[in-house]
């Protein structure tokens, strides 16, 4: 058995590959659902209904998708330039802390500055915190050749411990009855609700705007051209006269800033404060979403809504039939692998001897 490169890709395969990937995912996960002793068809129906089947389901899915879009974009832009930023989770928490530092400390007074000044400052601080957190690994990579996968991944744990220290220390909310949670940002800085009687907040619009802006940046600007060229072939880009090191720094700042914003928007749109479990792995899911979207910023929006819907749907399904919510992680992971394999088969074929 061996792999051979296809000279051309037939049209039916291009269309059939995603369908095959979904079918494969459903097959694998239904085995697990059956193993858990639940009726497969009913479980899937409940999952879909819980994620997309009602007004409430949609609002929950969109709320969950908001930070996922931003972390997905953070991973997509970094991966485009071959900067493998696995640190989205840490950058998200750093952004959340920075947001609270600007919008919540000093007894919530904000030095009596106007919200019109404080809000942009809060967002800027969050973006900067995420960006600076990724700057170190990016520089270590370009100057010293240190593998950024290792440094960004390990920084996640350092940041989480730092957050833990802050939540039990200087940023602790004394009125939280001993729970490790930060003080809240001012009410005036919290994001408004988009839809009544739901948790969807205006952060969703920020996320969508970021996706469109990143898409335009990559497609139409010289900076985007540099990012794509450096990512696809850094040697050729350098030969052609592109400032490769500067492009990599720019990408690191942009990617870190997007993940940092995800943290700030999550704080400002949801609870208003930081807890140690505010992100159920949004940073890591962002990587999966970016890959599912083939690193396309507009595709990230769709992939984020898909993943969010599965997560929300699995929650409600597990309450109705006895399948653990981990099934959501399995579905998302298997679908990622299936999509990657399906993409490979559009370019290669298997030959049997």
């Amino acid at each position, binding site marked *: 058995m061996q792999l*051979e*490169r*296809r*000279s*051309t890709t037939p049209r039916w395969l291009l269309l059939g590959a995603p369908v095959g990937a979904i079918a494969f995912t459903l097959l694998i996960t239904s085995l697990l659902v059956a193993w858990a002793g639940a009726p497969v068809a009913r479980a899937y129906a409940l999952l879909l209904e819980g994620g997309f089947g009602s007004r409430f389901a949609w609002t929950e899915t969109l709320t969950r998708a908001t930070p996922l879009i931003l972390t997905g974009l953070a991973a997509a832009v970094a991966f485009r330039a071959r900067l493998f930023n696995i640190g989205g989770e840490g950058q998200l928490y750093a952004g959340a802390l920075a947001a609270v530092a600007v919008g919540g400390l000093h007894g919530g007074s904000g030095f009596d500055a106007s919200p019109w000044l404080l809000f942009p400052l809060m967002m800027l601080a969050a973006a900067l915190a995420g960006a600076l957190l990724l700057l170190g690994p990016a520089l270590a990579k370009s100057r010293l050749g240190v593998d950024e996968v290792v440094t960004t991944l390990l920084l996640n744990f350092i940041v989480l411990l730092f957050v833990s220290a802050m939540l039990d220390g200087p940023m602790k909310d004394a009125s939280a009855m001993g729970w490790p949670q930060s003080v809240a940002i001012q009410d005036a800085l919290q994001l408004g609700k988009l839809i009544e009687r739901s948790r969807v907040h205006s952060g969703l619009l920020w996320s969508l705007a970021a996706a469109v802006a990143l898409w335009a940046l990559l497609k*139409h*600007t*010289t*900076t985007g*051209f540099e990012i*794509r*060229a450096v990512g*696809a*072939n850094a*040697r*050729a*880009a*350098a*030969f*052609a*006269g592109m400032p490769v090191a500067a492009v990599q720094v720019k990408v690191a700042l942009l990617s870190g800033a997007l993940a940092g914003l995800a943290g700030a928007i999550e704080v400002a749109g949801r609870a208003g404060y930081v807890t140690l479990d505010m992100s159920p792995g949004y940073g890591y899911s962002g990587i999966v979403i970016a890959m599912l979207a083939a690193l396309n910023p507009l595709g990230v929006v769709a992939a984020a809504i898909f993943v969010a819907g599965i997560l929300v749907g699995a929650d409600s399904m597990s309450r109705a039939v006895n399948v653990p919510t981990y099934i959501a992680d399995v579905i998302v992971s298997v679908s990622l692998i299936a999509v990657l394999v399906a993409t490979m088969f559009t370019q290669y074929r298997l*030959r049997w*001897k």
Partner: protein
Amino acid sequence: MASRRAAPSDRPRLNAPALRLRGITKRFGSLVANDGISLDLGRGEVLALLGENGAGKSTLVSILFGHYLADEGAIEAFGAPLPPGQPKAALAAGIGMVHQHFTLADNLSVLDNVMLGTEPLWWPFSRRARARARLLDAAQRFGLQVNPDAQVGTLSVGERQRVEILKALTRGAKILILDEPTAVLTPQESESLFATLAQLVAAGLSVIFISHKLDEVLRVSHRIAVLRGGRLVADLPAAGADKAMLAEAMVGRAVPPATKHARAPGAPVVELRGGTVRGTGARPLLDGIDLELRAGEVFAVAGVAGNGQDVLAELLCGLHALDGGTLTIAGRALPARPRAFVEAGVARIPEDRHAVGVVGDLPLWENAVLERYASPAFSRHGIVRRELALAHAKSLVERFDVRGTESAGLATITRSLSGGNMQKLILGRALAGDPDTKSSPPLIVANQPTWGLDIGAVAYVHQQLLDACAQGSAVLLISEDLDEVFALADRIAVMHHGRLGAPKPAREWTLAAIGLAMAGGEEAAHAA
């Protein structure tokens, strides 16, 4: 061209040809890589396999060696059918292969390399003494001098090739396939390889010699098989064949040689004085190089790869800063940045077109403006002016005859272009120069501009370089292909160990003198 075929023989098995291919067909999707190829290799015969890139040579050899499975056809080795798709069976039948890129471990000795993979893993002791005796016996028999204990990393390229050949011979090869064996050798090393081949053949071995150098093929082979587009288009004795006829068979049409326009050289364009680049090793990469290059001349730098030619090319492309000495281009000292050199009008053709010349994953039109995307001609306020870039790419494709864009047009992914068309794109990008002034570039730096290209594309690139030169460009040609050097150059100098020998007009050089200089002979003569 009339195709002749060996007469079918009913000779007994004992006299069966070393190899007999019958109707070999291999398809990749809609592409027919080998189309019903029937071919015999006689015992004690050197058969040259000639053809352009993509003609099907590699596919045929891969089928022979069991790496690919033929869709149709059969192979016999010494009268016995060869089981298809099994490299082990090919080895057992006595088929040995010497790849163009050696498969040796640099940090092991010659003996270790020869033994590698020949011993059963479960055997507790290595049978070195026996292997050594076999190696020395083969070396003796075929006149291949080699020190079994030398570390392969310390050997010259010619010596490494000898190790590869010995490796095949000690495994009992009776049919030796050599893939472009002279591509990496100096003329003297090639001579010694040809002597080796004569000895192998005298000892009864059969050889398949893959090459695209017509002179060599005519010299060393008994019979020549020409492939074109997957078909066997000629199979004829070497005696009586000539270069023009073989070239025509390969390309399918007559290939006129590039024409040179006589022109008196003009003002100096490149002035390099005492140019030194240190690098990290003990020996400087460039060691006090003096070079003066004038408008309207082709100056060729010959040499064995790795003697500093690449660094010289990179210096003139703005990728290296000088550690000592001075460099001016058209009278100006430039900062060591590629963009500064591009803006000064240096047309740059890098050695490795896939890894350095283009970004393969991007569409053709973006690669067409890869060097000048930031200039006002193609962007404003940081936004790419797509219409203008597309128009520029379109004019390049038309003017430089870039093919392979039929289905996807300017959005064709650059990786999918053939080597020749990719090089035309790079050549066009470089030679088109400043899109505003449309002036021809004052300097062209061409590093191995025709490496791996087929004859038609080679002729095209040569003619473009000579035409630009006639328009007043100075051309620095760096090449290991001496045929190319002699075909294009007005003056030639040889690089060895980071030093540039004294340049002389092309007609004052002989092949032997260049070969000696490439091996460092000139330097030794100076030192003595």
